[in-house]
């Protein structure tokens, strides 16, 4: 499977992973701003955003009508479309591609939903292996506090489809606990770099920039501050 082999394209693929409220999107936004000023050729892509399918998925989610397996395949369609339309062409053209969530999100969430571990890994087998994958690890209570600043947990992110609890807050904790468990298991499987997401935003960002600098330097890209 392509996902398990290093790619030989000129560009660099950097991905961030973690549950909702881990701060990974904030960290990636800060990194992106910095890279846009230093190396310039930067492309950003995020989970469930392809024109082809994301609206269909969002509508179906609102109606709570997706089974774990259709949920999984719909996200794979989104990923496949963005991979071939955005990620691969950008890597061929030498861009640094920043991805907010990648295949590991599917591996964590879908397996936490009861989808077969090997089945979902096979489905995403055509994915490109990232040059760098960071996992922002946050305890489930902090994640819940952060996302509930402005809203209640949503049906699928709380895993309400699994009937773990009638209370969305309780269900969120149980479900995201399972997701964290899956992420933890992937640290070794996929060489994810674990970042302590309870540290200050600034500290995390400085660490993130250090790691990215090393990866880009290894690819022959110099960062001009």
């Amino acid at each position, binding site marked *: 499977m392509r996902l398990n082999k290093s790619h030989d394209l000129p560009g660099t693929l950097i991905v961030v992973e973690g549950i909702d409220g881990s701060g990974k999107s904030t960290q990636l936004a800060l990194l992106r701003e910095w890279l846009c000023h230093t190396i310039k050729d930067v492309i950003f892509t995020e989970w469930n955003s392809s024109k*082809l399918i994301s609206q269909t998925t969002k509508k179906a989610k609102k109606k709570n009508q997706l089974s774990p397996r259709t949920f999984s*395949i719909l996200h794979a369609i989104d990923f496949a479309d963005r991979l071939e339309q955005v990620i691969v062409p950008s890597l061929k053209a030498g861009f640094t591609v920043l991805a907010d969530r990648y295949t590991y999100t599917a591996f964590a969430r879908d397996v936490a939903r009861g989808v077969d571990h090997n089945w979902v890994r096979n489905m995403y087998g055509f994915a490109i292996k990232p040059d760098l994958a960071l996992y922002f690890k946050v305890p489930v209570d902090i994640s819940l506090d952060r996302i509930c600043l402005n809203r209640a947990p949503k049906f699928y992110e709380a895993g309400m489809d699994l009937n773990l609890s009638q209370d969305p807050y309780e269900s969120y904790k149980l479900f995201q606990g399972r997701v964290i468990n899956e992420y933890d298991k992937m640290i070794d499987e996929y060489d994810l770099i674990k970042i302590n997401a309870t540290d200050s935003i600034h500290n995390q960002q400085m660490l993130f920039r250090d790691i990215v600098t090393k990866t880009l330097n290894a690819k022959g890209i110099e960062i001009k501050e």
Partner: protein
Amino acid sequence: MNDTNKNTKHGYPGLLIVVEGTDGSGRTMQIEKLREWLSFKGYGVMVSEWKTSKLMSNVIDQAKEKNLLNASTFSLLYAADFTDRLEKVIIPALRAGIIVITDRYTYTAYSRDVVRGVSPEWVRRVYDFAPVPDLVFYLKMPVEALLKRIIATSGFDYYESGRDIGLSTDFYESFKLYQRRIINEYAKMSNEFGFITINGNHSINTVQDKIRQNIEPLLEKIID
């Protein structure tokens, strides 16, 4: 009602009968005649066609219009359609002891997607949760006969002619090359999945009789 049935290949009380074949092989007409016959005999029967789920069929049509699909996206779009129909329609019907006839099944994906460049193992694993059908009929048609039927009826379709894989810019040539490859994939699957291959060039009634002869002995295995 009994929940399991050790006489069917999938273990559900009903029967799952698949009709495969390229466009123009007479699949849809044979299925309609089969449905009428089974209903007339007093069996609960239901037809489920490829690419008809509420969730996906419009999305697939729109996506195909733009002609911007790569092989894995193309494949997964159909897998989502199949899964949605399977979970919401096919399996509930099989559980209720109904005879489900499907117009195309996973084998359509195995042939089309492999011709488009995905690996045979990959696409088989994507669909590995699909119940094993009790019977798979493959209506086999030579390309020359298919060409005549298509020209005389619907005309060439972009994807059915395989224009998306760039075999030839000439529709006639492209159709021939593409359908040959599809037929080749079906031929390879024939042993792998135990197809009952029927010559689609025979008269409508001859084909129908062969289908019915194969189904008849299975009817007593239904539990409803």
